[in-house]
């Protein structure tokens, strides 16, 4: 669905992203991993079409991203930002409703309301919707922002969802709930790319992970292929071990380097 080829982003003489190629197909949920400053968010912004990269290019459905009409792109892909401060005092539900902006004139009021309600429901945010956004906690704001992104692509065929640290402020149960939600979007024919820091969650929920280090793609594949103890030690500076979870799942547990 989306294919990025040899992406280079240069700022102040440094390559923030250095020749990364990555593609996502329908039904895929991919985790983008790496330490701070590895270029994850920058790559995500390029994939979102925020600015053209200095080298390489991005295609969605085979057409260059920069040639996609803004409005078409906005109906196709949604982005969850890392930090989301909202100007002025506004109800949480109104934030979610802003996600329907690109559909104005194309969907009915009832469809919009449906998409907004479904999104709020999916993010377990029903109780938050009538409150002022500014009064919500960081995690609650994050869920409202996610609901806004979901409302944006709620009734889209083959949606693309780009999430920049979607779980950073969430409590544990909501972290898993949000990643399950991402899996569900993928399962319904969408593609989801999420910047994640928690290797445990990423290894448990993502079908595929891509690991960035100083702008380069250093590992890419299923979590078990990509996240070897060697790589995790070298890139993230922690030791790790794959562990078996009840229900036959496996996940990567990490712990400080042995001295």
């Amino acid at each position, binding site marked *: 669905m989306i294919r990025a080829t040899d992406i280079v982003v240069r700022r102040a003489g440094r390559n923030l992203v250095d020749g990364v190629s990555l593609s996502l197909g329908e039904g895929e949920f991919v985790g983008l991993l790496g330490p701070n400053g590895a270029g994850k968010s920058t790559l995500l*912004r390029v994939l*979102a079409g*925020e600015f053209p990269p200095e080298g390489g290019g991005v295609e969605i459905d085979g057409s260059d991203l920069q040639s996609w009409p*803004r*409005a078409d*792109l*906005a*109906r196709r*892909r*949604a*982005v969850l*930002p890392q930090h*989301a*401060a*909202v*100007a*002025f*005092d*506004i*109800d949480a539900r*109104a*934030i979610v409703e*802003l*996600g329907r*902006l*690109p559909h*104005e004139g194309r969907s009915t009021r009832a469809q919009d309301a449906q998409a907004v309600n479904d999104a709020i429901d999916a993010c377990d945010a029903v109780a938050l919707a009538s409150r*002022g956004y*500014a*009064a919500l906690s960081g995690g609650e704001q994050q869920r409202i922002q996610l609901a*806004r992104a979901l409302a*944006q692509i709620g009734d889209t065929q083959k949606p693309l969802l780009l999430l920049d640290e979607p779980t950073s402020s969430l409590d544990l149960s909501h972290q898993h709930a949000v990643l399950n939600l991402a899996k569900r979007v993928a399962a319904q024919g969408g593609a989801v790319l999420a910047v994640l820091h928690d290797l445990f969650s990423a290894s448990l929920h993502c079908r595929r992970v891509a690991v960035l280090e100083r702008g380069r793609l250093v590992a890419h594949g299923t979590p078990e292929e990509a996240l070897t103890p060697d790589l995790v030690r070298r890139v993230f500076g922690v030791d790790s071990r794959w562990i078996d979870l009840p229900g036959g799942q496996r996940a990567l547990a990490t712990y400080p380097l042995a001295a």
Partner: protein
Amino acid sequence: MTMRPAFVASAWLLAACLAALSLGPSRIPLGDVAAALLHGIGLDFSVDDRTLAIVASLRLPRMLLAATVGGMLALAGATLQGLFRNPLADPGVLGITGGATLGAVAAIFFGASAMGGAVLPLAGFAGALAAAFAVDRLARVDGRIPVASLLLSGIALESLSRALTGVLIYASDDRQLRDITLWLLGSYAGASWDRLMLIAPFALLSACALPFFARGLDALMLGEREAGHLGIPVETLKRLAVIVAALGVGAVVSVAGPVGFVGLVVPHLVRLTHGPGHRRLIPLAAAYGAALSVAADTLARILVAPAELPVGLVTAAIGAPFFAFLIRREKRRLAA
């Protein structure tokens, strides 16, 4: 917009307008006001010449000017606050008011009073546009206009205009000084059909265009990047909105002087009472801005009749305490 807020706003505006036509040094009953207005549009209503002259030649153009200025300032204030995601933004912050002031003061200094009606507004207008373009140039980084750089450029330009205005004031003689000071306080005393016609096209154009930015401004509440993700052409929106706002503000400031507080306070009042959505905020701000301005001017005319106060003093005197009251009432919500 649902009907009720629009209806309430229109009712206030209508009441303010009727009061403005009726009240003054000589009080004219509403029946006579209506008769004069109907006579004025060619219907066969009998009205004595004096009433007709007061209503049609003095109070009506003045009321329309007050409404245009107030509505325009509030409209521009609402737009700029939304654009900068900053509740303190108003035309003054962008250097637009400063540019218009410098232009007008320069015109007075170089003898505009002797040159007749249109020179002063045109000079103010030119100053406002020059300031808007200068800010746009100054603030642009790699073809984009970051809001922080826009605000800082605006503040720099506003200070520069103020300094240059100060130089002109310093060099003025007594008569120029009086004209300049009166203009600086803001007044609708110079209202005439000619002046109204001079600014009406610009104000109207601006007022018709600004509501089209509401959708983009709503998206901007989420942030610039987020608005971009929602398909809003953010850079285009910023440039167009600034230019359109400068056009309208430059026009009205050039005729009426820098009438304070309306552009800052009215959008806040509407936001506090009707929420921040721009589709509702922009038209309501225009209506309440016009109503406040008309009401303030009426007070300015009757409080010390037969003399009159500069309207800027009245808007500040009404606006500031009311604003303080609202902030107090909404303190908990604002702090959240």
